[in-house]
């Protein structure tokens, strides 16, 4: 504590609990006011200018508990989440192998760079017609879209990570004549973990979007995307908005879990991202 801070008179705090402090802290108050204002404008604007079926905050709030507990919604979210996780797992395993190989061997990097970069920039939605013809109008097409969306961002990030392994580590390996498998899996994979995590985050966001697009395109019954589409078409907008809220919640939940996991397991993690 510096001298000037000591000289200041003790702050007289109001007799508020932590909660009151939180509530009246200027940041929280501003945020809450803005939130209420946005909801108010939405409610009033819709009831003045839009047709009856358009969703309003109050309508969504009324519909919320019923939808959350309904069987249809639970099956839908289970389907989407399961596909996303399965696809991410596949993309993670193969993406890491390909990425590490590309980062470690210049031949592979030179020969695959063009393809990886090209597929990474390719909008996955353009591939949907192709994937539905190859994998049929079913869950497989959705899984393929998710894998496709997630794979290349993982490869690109892992490759960057594998390239930036500190050269001292590799020199020590060489000096002790370490077998290639140690160099690859014990040194390279671990030291490119931060990049892997960054790529995985990016991949997760893309995977969720990919799952929803595929559900729209294939009209897959057990998906949140289809849940939204179906209810929006039947002019149950209040119900459909709950689906959108669920999608946002999935994304945020994933972010929070990843944040917690990185802080818990990889405290040395630096934030290095390659944005999409």
């Amino acid at each position, binding site marked *: 504590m510096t001298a000037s801070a000591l000289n200041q008179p003790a702050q007289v705090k109001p007799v508020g609990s932590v909660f009151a402090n939180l509530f009246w802290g200027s940041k929280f108050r501003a945020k809450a006011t803005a939130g209420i204002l946005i909801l108010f404008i939405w409610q009033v604007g819709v009831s003045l200018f839009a047709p009856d079926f358009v969703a309003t905050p109050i309508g969504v709030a009324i519909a919320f508990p019923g939808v959350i507990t309904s069987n249809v919604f639970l099956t839908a979210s289970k389907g989407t989440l399961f596909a996303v996780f399965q696809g991410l797992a596949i993309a993670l395993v193969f993406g890491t192998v390909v990425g590490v190989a590309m980062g470690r061997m210049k031949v592979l990097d030179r020969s695959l760079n063009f393809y990886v970069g090209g597929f990474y920039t390719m909008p996955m939605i353009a591939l949907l017609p192709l994937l539905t013809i*190859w994998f049929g109008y079913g869950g497989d097409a959705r899984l393929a879209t998710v894998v496709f969306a997630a794979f290349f961002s993982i490869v690109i990030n892992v490759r960057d990570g594998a390239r930036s392994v500190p050269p001292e580590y590799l020199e020590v390996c060489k000096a002790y004549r370490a077998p290639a498998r140690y160099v690859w899996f014990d040194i390279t994979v671990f030291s490119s973990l931060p990049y892997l995590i960054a790529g995985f985050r990016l991949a997760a966001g893309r995977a969720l979007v990919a799952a929803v697009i595929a559900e729209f395109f294939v009209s897959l019954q057990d998906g949140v995307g289809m849940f939204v589409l179906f209810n*929006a078409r039947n002019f149950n907008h209040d119900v459909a908005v709950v689906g959108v809220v669920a999608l946002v919640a999935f994304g945020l939940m994933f972010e929070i879990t990843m944040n917690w996991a990185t802080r818990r397991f990889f405290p040395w993690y630096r934030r290095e991202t390659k944005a999409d």
Partner: protein
Amino acid sequence: MDRVLTFVNSDRAYVRWGTIFLALLIGGVIWEIVGMQFNQAIMAPLIGDGADHPGTLPRLGRYLFDDEEYLLSLVQSIQLFATGFGLALAAALPFGIVLARLVMLRVALESYILMLYVTPMIALIPFILSILGFDFWPKVLVVYLFAFFPILYNTLEGARSVKPELLEVAKSFRSSELAIWTDILIPYTLPYALTGIRQAAGRALVGMVAAEFFLSTSGLGEELITASRNFDMAGVLATILVITGLGITFMRIAGIFEQKFSAWRGLDR
């Protein structure tokens, strides 16, 4: 074995270019062989024989140089993209810079903007469809929504990087509002905004195709759907190549600007 590995991994120019050339060649040959193996309703080869297995490259050439209707679709798509993206740019950039100036407003809106940034905009398409219907402007709205939030979010990130001391110094020297904008706010937020613009170009392209798929079909999306309904794989693959080419072009242009201004980011952030 070791000697071979050392040779192919070496940095000599002819090895490097040879590898790249060989990889492209092998990729092309694999594509050709796979395409010739399967029925044309499942996969089209790269070059093809023109009869049973129409090739992708000849089709691409015909589309781009010898097919007015297709060019019209291409122009239609670019029009849609440009309108939506331009509107998003015109709205998000000034808004982001205003948020850099008005700190209270920024604090109040930050978390909501982040929330909308992570919302998969694709999920809003059904609502736009049933409220606004089939027209040109609903599709523009889709592209706009895809592009708006990445730009705004990244500009906001730049707004957060503006040092309050700078604004205070400007204030204590009675700097004019115009000078604050041109000398502090815009230079600080622009590099971040350009990152957002590059991101937004990629997303808006997805938005463009999605709008053309799920709202009234038109442009390249329509070409893609029509080709896939007719099981015309050469057409599907050629259109995918065109869309990818568009994406690469847009992102390259945005990337050039980003590079140009990235030095403004400053080292101490």
